[in-house]
């Protein structure tokens, strides 16, 4: 039962005993690939990883122009700007951009989340100079053409209509609104029909202009490329951006919401109930993150975690249930999510509460901690197979101000966490007595089941 144990003779020399799991030879060494960091005279930082096994490269420009900068009456602005960036520049219209990158077999995308905006381009390595120029052009000279803005607004409005019929989205919105109340994270990252309808090209251009600086921005690169040559070409490529100080981040520490509170989005015909249950978590660069990752892995981060084994494998209430501390620059939520059979929604919620309490009441078994630790350590290389996996790690370093050796040092930080650390963190970072609960489903069936957990408010679908 201990596949991690070392041994000295190969299995094939022994008679086969299927009752015992084979134990493994020593693990092969793995180190996070070297990260090259260079900064241009203008203040743009390059983070690059060279990998030559496939003839591909992926480049991503990232800055902090995320949804946390959305003005109170303009939720969705950053996200709307992000989707407009690659829809035309002063030099090339949207059709020309798509024709030229796709004609080379490559792809270009732009978008924003809460923390940042990004423009990415990937292609065969021989097209790297083209991709670099295109990304720089998109970041430096977006046109925000009125015709393109109208087109994207109408696409976005229709997309919001689609989301208004999506039970998982509606449960998540009810949860976030109740949890964050007046804080920017309470709003819809992708906007609402009202805010998007009002958005004009001038709003977009003004928003982006404030962030059009090399300082605080990053170019992330991975693949079959030469980091030094790439660095040498950055100054000219990004000459269209200023060297100004970027805008300071808004305050991102929300007050704790006074749960328990239950918010039901009434979908009378829904075939299931979407549950989102939680409270405030921690910012991504929190010092206890390794402990919290292990805590969550025991609780709900993987298939064999307590919450999934309980709700799915013991009770059959759901196809899957999971928990996570959501990564944000500010205080992201801690969240348990599951789509459950409507008839057992109350019982499913009770099991979630029970699992949160159990981790507070008694320390986890040391075997649970060891299993979670070896899972997180072992699965790490798996997440680095693709260029997208590598660039996503670089993006975490960039957006969350993590040191270049963060991932090299990460295994050792995980190894130091003890059972007591996890138990202590559970008492401090889980709050089963003041849960915020968002549910989307048939209110008439759900309300009686949920009332024992706290005050219930029923809402119509909204973003």
């Amino acid at each position: 039962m201990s596949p991690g144990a070392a041994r000295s003779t190969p299995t094939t020399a022994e008679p086969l005993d299927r009752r015992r799991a084979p134990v493994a030879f020593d693990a092969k060494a793995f180190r996070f690939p070297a990260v090259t960091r260079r900064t241009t005279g203008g203040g743009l930082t390059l983070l690059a990883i060279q990998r030559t096994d496939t003839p591909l490269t992926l480049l991503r420009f990232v800055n902090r122009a995320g949804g946390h900068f959305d003005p109170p009456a303009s939720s969705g602005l950053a996200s709307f700007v992000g989707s407009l960036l690659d829809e035309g520049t002063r030099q090339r219209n949207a059709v020309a951009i798509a024709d030229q990158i796709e004609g080379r077999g490559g792809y270009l995308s732009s978008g924003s989340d809460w923390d940042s905006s990004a423009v990415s381009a990937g292609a065969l390595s021989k097209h790297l100079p083209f991709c670099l120029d295109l990304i720089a052009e998109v970041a430096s000279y977006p046109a925000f053409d009125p015709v393109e803005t109208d087109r994207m607004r109408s696409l976005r409005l229709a997309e919001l209509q689609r989301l208004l019929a999506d039970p998982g989205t509606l449960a998540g919105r009810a949860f976030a609104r109740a949890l964050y109340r007046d804080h920017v994270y309470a709003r819809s990252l992708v906007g609402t029909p009202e805010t998007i309808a009002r958005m004009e090209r001038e709003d977009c251009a003004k928003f982006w202009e404030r962030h059009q600086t090399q300082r605080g921005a990053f170019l992330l690169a991975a693949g079959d490329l030469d980091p030094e040559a790439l660095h040498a070409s950055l100054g000219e490529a990004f000459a269209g951006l200023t060297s100004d100080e970027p805008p300071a981040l808004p305050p991102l520490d929300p007050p704790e919401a006074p749960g328990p509170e239950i918010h039901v989005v009434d979908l009378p015909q829904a075939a299931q109930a979407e549950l989102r249950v939680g409270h405030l978590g921690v910012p991504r660069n929190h010092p206890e993150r390794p402990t919290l990752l292990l805590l969550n892995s025991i609780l709900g981060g993987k298939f064999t975690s307590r919450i999934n084994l309980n709700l799915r494998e013991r009770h059959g209430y759901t196809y899957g249930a999971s928990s996570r501390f959501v990564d944000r620059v500010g205080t992201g939520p801690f969240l348990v999510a599951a789509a459950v059979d409507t008839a057992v929604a109350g019982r499913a919620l009770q099991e979630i509460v029970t699992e949160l309490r159990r981790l507070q009441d008694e320390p986890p078994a040391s075997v649970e901690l060891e299993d979670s630790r070896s899972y997180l350590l072992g699965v790490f290389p798996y997440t680095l197979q693709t260029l997208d996996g590598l660039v996503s790690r670089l993006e975490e370093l960039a957006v969350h101000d993590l040191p270049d050796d963060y991932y090299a040092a990460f295994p050792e930080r995980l190894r130091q966490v003890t059972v007591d650390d996890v138990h202590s963190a559970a008492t401090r970072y889980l709050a089963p007595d003041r849960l915020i609960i968002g549910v989307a489903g048939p209110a008439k069936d759900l309300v009686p089941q949920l009332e024992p957990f706290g005050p219930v408010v029923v809402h119509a679908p909204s973003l």
Partner: protein
Amino acid sequence: MDAITRHVLGNGLRLVMHRRAELPLVAINLWYHVGSKNERPGRTGFAHLFEHMLFQGSEHVGVNDHFRYVQQVGGVANGSTWFDRTNYYETLPAHQLELGLWLEADRMGFLLPAMTAEKLETQRAVVMNERRQRVDNQPYGRAFERVHELLYPEGHPYRWPVIGYMEDIAAATLDDVRAFFSTYYRPNNCVLTLVGDFDEARARDLVERYFGGLPSGEPPPIPSAGLPPPRLETSAETMEDRVRLPRAYLAWCVPPFGDLRWYAASLLSAVLTGGKASRLHRDLVYERELAQSVACSVFPTEECATFGVMATGRPDGSPEHLRDEVLRTLQQVAESGIREDEYDRALNGILTGHYHELESLDHLADSISAATTFFDEPERALHEHDVYSAVTPAHVREVAAEYLAARGSTYVAVIPEGG
């Protein structure tokens, strides 16, 4: 890059190995040549429910211990069921290869002693919730199965959905589990693919050790014999659903995966909707703003393949209008073919996509299992873009003319409730 090597064990298990040593990982991938097409009406969804039962332990592996063993060494594991096949896979730290082989061999050889009515009941409830989550509570969720019900005639095994109908999932018994296992879960009905950082001689020894003693069975029945042909006439249906945007689904049947005409159809789908510069996207989404999105797909299935187009309209749009525009575009391709720049763009995109597939060991292992199961040609997975290169613009025009434009379409519209 190392070559592909293959061996057939005495019991018929086909082993395929491909070394990729960039990362200390090994992908283990098994394809059992059984899927929803091997089911019968009244027991639809059984192949998939059965896949769930394969994670419920076997004689020497406790309930839920499959995932526990895999995750406690830092591996990932899962399985999936489709029309023609069921796959099971895990990617492990390279030195844990033997653990994965032990787990897979135990459920191939020693499943039935661990099966109980309680486990079946729980997984039945899990699968019913999976169906609710993915189909019944999903906007547009029922449309796709309706398309197949209309496209394929009574008696054709692609007619019913892989996840099955709710009442059929309810009807499955433990006896069905035993019979299905004995018929289909045999070494001679399976391909085992290993991709990653391992020593081939040792891996082969280990596979022989764990799988070599498992008994082979009768060759399973082949459901493709005497299949009724897919429908050629037009059919149309409108469904109301809890959606805000209208959507049009169109489908046809094209030659099976592996046929040159399948690759021509796949290239056509890239010309039509692959990227923002593609013909339908540019026309319907960008220039005329009739659609919110448009996408094509060609299923890699072995009896024949569903060529599907899905166009989501604007809030006040008409799905019939979208249908007519898609049909008009297909007619254009059938008459005038595709432009050289369209052809080049599609091929270049496919080449980039091919290299992306090579990046990930589990995708590559799955493609190798597919190429071995369907064609007995594992190398094909490494060279699929060469097959695409053999497709000419004329082939694309021919497939559009013969299989799409000249035949009736299966059309399903989804409109907002009460709309």
